[in-house]
């Protein structure tokens, strides 16, 4: 009933989190702190267009990193990366068209409407994983078998060979179909293997069934189910092959297989330099598929997906119906974020996400925001409008605020933790499990039952062992405490006490004072940690399986350097990632 992109909420920024004992403070940056050998960071697409990324020289001297960095700019070993089920769905659509594609999506719950369609990084969902286990293989086998059956039932339409194809026509179709499915030319061995299926099954049944089973075999072939990142030699660090890079780029940006232009560029060896790669990034980013994919990724990034499941005890929140979904705050807020991302991501700097003074509202949300929309009477109509002075950016939108609230009250701690983790890549501590400590917390909760949120935060910030961690994130939540559980602005708490939204930001900000949530967002947007954190997480997204990166990894810093030299838009960040060594090159993974 919610109009949504169907992106299952996955915490975007939890990769590589490191547990820090409560008593020792919580100032650690998210991710392992391994490796201390600085390497040159990247000038990337902006600074080095024209040099050869494929040869490993496309990234130049550091231009924007914060000095020392950790580890290598090449993060991952040579590997094979399985396609997610959504990527398999997109691949099937490209091979068979939307009729069978839609049927496969529905029958096997693999398409963009599937609740497991999107996680961040893509394979981090419990329903996915990086390995094709028995359970996943069984599902893939069913899909492949169904594709074979579809081919038999639509033989002429699919092959163009008529109802009783000749061997020559059928074999030509199979070769061509396999190349499209594998996203590259076939080796002689691969062609021989798939034609062996054709000849064996032809002997058993006949040509139509031989085509059917060949398609079945292609659909469950590892050459389709994985994209390889092996380069020309497994024993040496080096670039992906042009066809590998074409697939990696396409699945990164659009979650689907490479289009004709990318494959053609790979074939012509025109996917070598940062400029060549960047040109394809720009072209792909102009497509609807890429934009929807990346808007969906960012939707998960900000954890707005939680909105679909969060429980809020406010009747206006849940008043949407099937017939009039946008009469409810939940559905309206969801759509506001969708529209905000769709309209903000592709123009202006990345920081607009936190600083934009406009949004896309309907009458339902206008009521929550304490404003009117002249001339708009139908709640299904969302219009671009300036937001009130107490709003600005995603963190003050109902979608973010409600998704991080308790049923009856906003949560200073929950909101603070999300900002700390998702926007700044700081490590959030685990909730204590020591019974003695839990008893102390319960005792404090009882003692502070009548206290204001600020008084509670003051207690947490001044009392060991709470202070070790809460001082690092409570301030963010306190600045957002002027918004209730559905994001309505409030000057007073339920007990009639005035809420002071001014906060002294954590040490990360050198204890800078922010007068309210809008000022806090501006401070975060300007902080180098935000850019580095965002870069790290989008690089993880691009790498699909989630590498052990940190904001201060050399791989991250190389991208940050190029990004700072650009117009600092999301498109530029994606371009920097696409041309980075972390994306285009792999370390040797060891011989067998």
């Amino acid at each position: 009933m919610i109009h949504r992109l169907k992106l299952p909420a996955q915490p975007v920024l939890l990769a590589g989190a490191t547990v820090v004992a409560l008593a020792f403070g919580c100032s650690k940056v998210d991710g392992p702190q391994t490796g201390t050998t600085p390497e040159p960071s990247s000038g990337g697409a902006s600074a080095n267009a024209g040099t050869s990324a494929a040869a490993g020289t496309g990234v130049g001297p550091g231009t924007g990193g914060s000095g020392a960095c950790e580890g290598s700019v090449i993060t991952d070993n040579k590997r094979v990366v399985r396609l997610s089920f959504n990527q398999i769905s997109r691949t099937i659509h490209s091979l068979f068209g939307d009729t069978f594609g839609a049927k496969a999506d529905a029958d096997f719950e693999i398409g963009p409407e599937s609740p497991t369609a999107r996680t961040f990084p893509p394979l981090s969902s419990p329903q996915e994983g990086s390995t094709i286990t028995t359970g996943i293989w069984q599902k893939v086998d069913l899909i492949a078998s169904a594709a074979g059956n579809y081919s038999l039932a639509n033989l002429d339409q699919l092959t163009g060979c008529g109802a009783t194809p000749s061997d020559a026509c059928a074999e030509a179709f199979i070769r061509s179909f396999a190349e499209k499915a594998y996203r590259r030319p076939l080796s002689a061995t691969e062609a021989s293997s798939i034609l062996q299926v054709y000849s064996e099954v032809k002997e058993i049944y006949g040509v139509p069934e031989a085509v059917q089973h060949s398609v079945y075999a292609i659909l469950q072939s590892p050459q389709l189910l994985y994209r390889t990142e092996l380069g020309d030699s497994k024993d040496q660090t080096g670039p992906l092959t042009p066809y590998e890079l074409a697939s990696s780029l396409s699945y990164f940006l659009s979650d689907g297989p490479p289009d004709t232009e990318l494959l053609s560029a790979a074939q012509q060896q025109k996917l070598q330099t940062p400029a060549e790669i960047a040109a394809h990034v720009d072209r792909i980013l102009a497509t609807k598929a890429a934009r929807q994919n990346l808007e969906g990724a960012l939707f998960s990034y900000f954890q707005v997906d939680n909105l679909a499941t969060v429980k809020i005890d406010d009747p206006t929140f849940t008043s949407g119906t099937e017939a009039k979904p946008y009469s409810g705050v939940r559905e309206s807020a969801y759509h506001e974020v969708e529209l905000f991302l769709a309209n903000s991501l592709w123009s202006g700097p990345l920081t607009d996400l936190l600083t934009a003074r406009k949004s896309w509202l309907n009458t339902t949300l206008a009521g929550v925001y304490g404003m009117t929309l002249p001339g708009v009477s139908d709640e299904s109509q969302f219009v671009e409008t300036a937001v009130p002075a107490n709003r600005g950016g995603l963190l003050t939108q109902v979608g973010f605020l409600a998704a991080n609230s308790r049923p009856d009250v906003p949560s200073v701690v929950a909101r603070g933790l999300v900002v700390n983790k998702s926007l700044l890549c700081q490590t959030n501590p685990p909730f204590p499990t020591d019974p003695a400590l839990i008893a102390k917390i319960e005792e404090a909760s009882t003692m502070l039952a009548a206290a204001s949120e600020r008084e509670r935060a003051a207690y947490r910030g001044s009392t060991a062992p709470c202070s070790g961690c809460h001082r690092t994130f409570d301030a963010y939540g306190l600045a957002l405490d002027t918004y209730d559980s559905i994001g309505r602005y409030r000057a007073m708490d339920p007990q009639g006490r005035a809420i002071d939204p001014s906060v002294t930001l954590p040490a990360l900000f050198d204890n800078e004072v922010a007068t309210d949530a809008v000022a806090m967002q501006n401070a975060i947007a300007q902080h180098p940690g935000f850019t580095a954190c965002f870069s790290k997480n989008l690089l993880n997204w691009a790498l699909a399986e989630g590498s052990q990166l940190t904001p201060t990894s050399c791989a991250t810093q190389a991208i940050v350097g190029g990004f700072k030299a650009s117009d600092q838009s999301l498109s530029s960040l994606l371009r920097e990632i696409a041309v980075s060594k972390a994306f285009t090159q792999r370390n040797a993974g060891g011989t067998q």
Partner: protein
Amino acid sequence: MKSYRFARRSFLAGIGGAFALEILLRDMEAAAEGASSPARMLLTHFPVGTYRQSYLPKGSQTDFTLSPILQPFESLKSDMIVLYGFQDRLTCPGGGGHEAGTPFTTTCANSPGTRANGGEGDDGVAGGPSFDQVFLKHVPGLKQSGAGYINTLADARVDSLETSTQCLSYGEGIPGGTDYRTRSIKAANPGGNITEYTPNLPELSPANAYAKLFSNFIPGGSTTGNNEAALKALRARKSVLDHALRELAALKALAPASEADKIEAHASAVREVEKQLVEQIDNGAMGGGTVCTKPTAPDPALKGQTGSKFDYGAEATATSDEEQHERIGKAHAAVILAAFQCDIIRVASSRRIFALE
């Protein structure tokens, strides 16, 4: 091919609807009168707690009196072990009562923490393999070639982002050893990465469960025509799997050592099924002749729902979810029973009622 026969040649006209369950049950009873059946295991679970005072038996060890809730199982009392109090003995940092409780129940193992899945952060992961997988690996006669087991669920909307409240099976046994499949995941609690026993996620669609279990099954007994048709189908499918294995071998040769386990896991899944095909082909397709009739596939439209838990019970819902659960649950049960009777699997887990939180 199969190790035992049923007394009746045909026990089922179709399992497309709930009505089939009654037919199955009648025929299972009839079959049981004249034939011995192998050991089987069906794991089911009634989630989200119960009324403790009416659940706990009185007594201990083998000398106990069943509680009112357990009274219907009186006839099984001598074979019964009643377990409770996991929360006092097992740990799961950050795990919710319901969320950690289900893996506790199915694995009896401490959990390393909770899954970072964007949900409530209390989605406890499995710290050991589930009983069905342990039994499959170690109890002689339970493991059949092919799928080996099935895990089904009638509704996945609660908690829609969690695995623990939806999954009863964890950690497939790795062939040829004592290990079970595990993987490293991001943890909401205690943070960082933790190792979980890989969830064997439930099948929501009875039609898909049917396809998994019956795709290699040729019905009708050992007639000449059936055998020929069966052999053709088996050889054609084997050709497809052979192709996959050739490609995996080629990929393994190209990939570095760090990817070997990943590729081997995939190849192992294919080889398991191919081994079954080879056995069937070597036996002349129908072999000893299981004389059970291949049931009709369930309606593909009948499947457990996914999506937000808040869709459940929403005013706009046009049909009763309880009715839907009953139809899906019965269809799942019918598929499992048919697969048991045809001796395709001997281990299954299934949950019909879902955890409403």
